[in-house]
């Protein structure tokens, strides 16, 4: 991979975000996605495919799963000498306080940021899924002469969705006038994808400025304030885009990909999404299996019925069991004749006694990790 003049930062969500259930066990970046991936595979693969070979991943609480999954980063196809994926921790990691935000994490590691050789930085969130060539973003940024370029996605369903997200107000020249919160007041919005491109020096100045102004300011707060003084522009993203900042968002974003056309647009041979392999063997389907419209990972044993669902690695679905509109995470077992609908079964869940687990399409039932029901 040829290297470009930017390093990458994969950011953590601030403490206002909490995904019920799932996030009790791991940060959003470590959520399983579409069975064989983890959410953080998307920002890192985007960076790797964009020739970014120095990447900082900021982790807050419960870093084990991210640390293990990212490892040395070789599976992301980054030269292990010239490049590096570095995990950066913030010391306040476990505290839920409002002071524990992205700016405080960057400040704690500001020496390391300042020592980076690259002139530019691309910051992308660990809690959104999309495909983007950051070389194009950087080229556009440099050519435009802007101080900061922000990635956004135009949506027409902001009334119902993207509730936790920031929005951009743009002028005709794509200048960003302000960053606000999506209050669900209008259907058409430019959702801010929490993705930034700027010079490293500008970034360092912003971090320092934010911390001087207020210790609860986040990066988007300070950029919002600087919109008046700096040339801040928007860059429109097209294609699949999902934010995973609530259990519903996660559920919908996953099941949306059961439309194979959408999925195969997100996963293209020339833009591989890398992940860590678990060396599981192929999945075995038995005499009695009935599977339709589903993504199934390797290592499963399937005797029952699966419809419109996403099945993680090493899942066992016994005879007569029916899984519908559900997400089953790795190593869960569903015993005979059990019916599961609109549910999310976390890793190692074992469903034996509960005859039925039924959620609503807009309120999926969540089953805890290692729960035996």
């Amino acid at each position, binding site marked *: 991979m040829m290297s470009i003049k930017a390093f990458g930062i994969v950011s953590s969500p601030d403490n206002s975000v909490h995904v019920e259930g799932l996030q009790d066990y791991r940060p959003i970046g470590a959520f399983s996605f579409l069975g064989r991936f983890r959410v953080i595979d998307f920002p890192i693969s985007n960076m790797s495919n964009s020739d970014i070979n120095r990447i900082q991943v900021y982790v807050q609480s419960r870093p084990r799963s991210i640390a293990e999954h990212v490892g040395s980063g070789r599976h992301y196809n980054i030269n292990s000498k010239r490049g590096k994926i570095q995990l950066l921790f913030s010391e306040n990691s476990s505290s839920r306080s409002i002071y524990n935000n992205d700016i405080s994490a960057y400040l704690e590691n500001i020496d390391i940021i300042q020592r980076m050789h690259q002139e530019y930085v691309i910051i992308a969130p660990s809690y959104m899924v999309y495909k983007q060539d950051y070389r194009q973003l950087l080229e556009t940024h440099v050519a435009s002469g802007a101080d900061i370029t922000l990635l956004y996605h135009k949506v027409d369903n902001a009334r119902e969705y993207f509730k936790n997200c920031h929005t951009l107000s743009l002028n005709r020249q794509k200048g960003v006038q302000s960053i606000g919160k999506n209050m669900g007041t209008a259907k058409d919005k430019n959702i801010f994808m929490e993705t930034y491109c700027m010079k490293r020096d500008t970034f360092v100045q912003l971090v320092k400025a934010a911390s001087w102004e207020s210790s609860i300011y986040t990066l988007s707060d300070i950029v919002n304030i600087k919109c008046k003084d700096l040339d801040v522009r928007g860059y429109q993203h097209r294609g699949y885009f999902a934010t995973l900042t609530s259990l519903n968002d996660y559920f919908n974003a996953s099941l949306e990909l059961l439309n194979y056309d959408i999925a195969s647009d997100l996963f293209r041979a020339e833009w591989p999404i890398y992940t860590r392999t678990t*060396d599981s*063997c*192929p999945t075995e*389907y038995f005499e009695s*299996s009935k599977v339709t*419209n589903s993504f199934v990972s390797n290592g499963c044993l399937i005797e029952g019925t699966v419809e419109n669902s996403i099945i993680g690695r090493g899942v066992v679905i016994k005879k007569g069991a029916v899984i519908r509109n559900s997400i089953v995470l790795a190593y869960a077992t569903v015993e005979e004749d059990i019916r599961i609908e609109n549910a999310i079964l976390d890793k190692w869940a074992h469903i034996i006694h509960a005859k039925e687990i039924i959620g609503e399409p807009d309120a999926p039932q969540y089953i805890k990790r290692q729960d035996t029901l």
Partner: protein
Amino acid sequence: MAQNEMLAMILAGGRGSRLKDLTTKVAKPAVFYGGKYRIIDFPLSNCANSGIDIVGVLTQYESVLLNSYVAQDGRWGLDSKDSGVYVLTPREKADEGLDVYRGTADAISQNIDFIDTYDPEYLLILSGDHIYKMNYAKMLEYHKAMNADATIAVRGVPMKEASRFGIMNTDGKGRIVEFEEKPAKPKSNLASMGIYIFTWKPLRKMLVEDMKNPNSNHDFGKDIIPKMLNDKKGLFAYEFKGYWKDVGTIDSLWEANMDLLDPKNPLSLNDSSWLIYTEDVSTLPQYIGNDAKIKCAYITQGVRVEGSVTNSVLFTGAVVEKGAKVIDSVLMPGVVVEEGATVTRALVAENVRIGAKARIGSKNSENIELVAKNVKGGTK
């Protein structure tokens, strides 16, 4: 430091010509098996799981793919500081001409300098084209306990078939007293698996002598083992009881794949304590479409099934389109079975496209059909 106690050398130079078109471009050890593996993944993963750090792979013939494949030693975790998989091809020395390997023993002899670099106590010799799971560390324990010069892994074959194999006759306590290649009247049913552990120093001496012997075939089975028996060396048989398959023909390759559909299949690739490692791919998980019907199948990531699949093994990236039927077959990576086509009792080679409505194979065929070229669409 036990790391170089035992070095493994995998003989991977076989042409595998009975596998026909599957081996015109790749050597037999690189042939696909089991939905996501290549045959050589088995000995290599066995080495990794048995704690062997250094593996030499001896190749010749059309092996550019095999060489590149095994060179990626991270696939089997053999990429830590002092580990590695090394491709060893016949080579030209400053004072000699360039040569091919003349026999299994010659392949080792030509690489004595490589082996010497690691100064092992024991040498494990394996074949690159067998499918099985085996803990070589246990075999080494046995070798040490017996204070053996050589230990040969054997397995029991049906007595009536024994005359097709190299048979080891033992003294009842494991010591080999006689070796008969394809005996007309076998005295035992213990067939050699072509897996040897030798104490390196004495073997090295024998190999050096054997190289100079103009009457030798430079082969372990024909020359080295008989000579060791003759010299009253300590040769022991180590009996292996698990699943083992040498897939020499299209039919046996197909059969070995079909074995995986048996829920009681003893190869149990699902066993997390002895995983078989292979190339990693960046694909979607397998997608099973709206109208798909799957009964008894072994399917891996990156496959897309919109049609019907029965009793079959599907490799990475295989596609079964709407209305297509795949029965009792093996689809190798990237095979596409277009709409309405039917594939029965066939083994379809990598990246072959079966045109819409084509019909391949038949339910009652004697042999499995190998499809190595694209098939045009049918009319029916």
